[in-house]
């Protein structure tokens, strides 16, 4: 059988393999940027609420961040295979986003929005989401973020306004910005390792 195969056909096969692997590799999920984006959004909302209109700051910033996340994510969605894990991740974060948004807007409109209660709720919810995600993805670093969020939530119940604010800002910095950048670096390294591992196909 092999004696009849032309070298061009052999080259075509190798080219097909390379092309398909490249197609698959483009699907590598990368969500580190969403953590950074939301971390920045939290900071913008906090700064806006502190300096300007507190009632508008959170709803407007959160909706804007949600729309931006949706637009950026949808641009790469068609390149990704739909997987159970991917859907589970989307469900967790979508559920969390809607829950926080609905609750915070309702508390804000009713005039019962208190800094301690807000941080406690957000900390508990983000802790829960990060914990669930870390178990599904088997990612210890994310579980550490969950613990940090829970700690911030608990601290908000017992500490002063200043300490609560500092704890919240610190948790955002480490669990959103630093973790997001770490995630992006980890995803990039994983992709490079994958390319090196697939080198046997290309060499």
């Amino acid at each position, binding site marked *: *059988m092999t004696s009849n195969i032309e070298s061009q056909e*052999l080259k075509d*096969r190798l080219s097909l393999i*390379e092309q398909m692997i*490249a*197609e*698959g590799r483009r*699907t590598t999920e990368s969500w580190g940027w969403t953590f950074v984006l939301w971390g920045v959004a939290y900071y913008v909302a906090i700064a806006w609420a502190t300096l300007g209109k507190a009632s508008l700051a959170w709803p407007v910033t959160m909706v804007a961040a949600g729309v931006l996340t949706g637009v950026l994510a949808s641009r790469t969605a068609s390149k990704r295979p739909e997987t159970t894990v991917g859907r589970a991740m989307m469900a967790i974060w979508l559920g969390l986003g809607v829950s926080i948004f609905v609750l915070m807007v309702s508390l804000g409109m009713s005039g019962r929005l208190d800094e301690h209660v807000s941080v406690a709720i957000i900390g508990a919810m983000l802790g829960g989401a990060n914990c669930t995600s870390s178990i599904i993805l088997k990612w210890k670093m994310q579980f550490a973020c969950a613990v940090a969020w829970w700690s911030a939530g608990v601290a908000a119940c017992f500490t002063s306004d200043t300490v609560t604010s500092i704890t919240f800002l610190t948790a955002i910095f480490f669990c959103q910005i630093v973790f997001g950048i770490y995630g992006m670096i980890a995803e990039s390294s994983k992709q490079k390792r994958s390319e090196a591992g*697939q080198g046997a*196909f290309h060499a």
Partner: protein
Amino acid sequence: MPELPELNPVIHGKLRLALLSLLSAVDEAEFTWLRTKTGSTDGNLGAQLLKLEEAGYVAVEKKFVQRKPQTLYRMTDSGRLALTEYVQALKQLLGAAIGA
């Protein structure tokens, strides 16, 4: 003259080769995604995936998500090994063809 390797006939089909290559780069993939990437018809794709499944190169998981049937495919270890061996055989043959 060294003996040239045989190409694995299960992998050699173009669509099956494309499918294994795609699956080698992802954890798992849905039937519809594989159809989009390969531009194949449902019938042909299903038949070729069945051959890969029968050879033990891909594992299939069928379930219902929101009442819609969903079929997930993932490459098995033996599938990955077979693809690696196939690529090595291709290169060996290509080297021989160029040298001839």
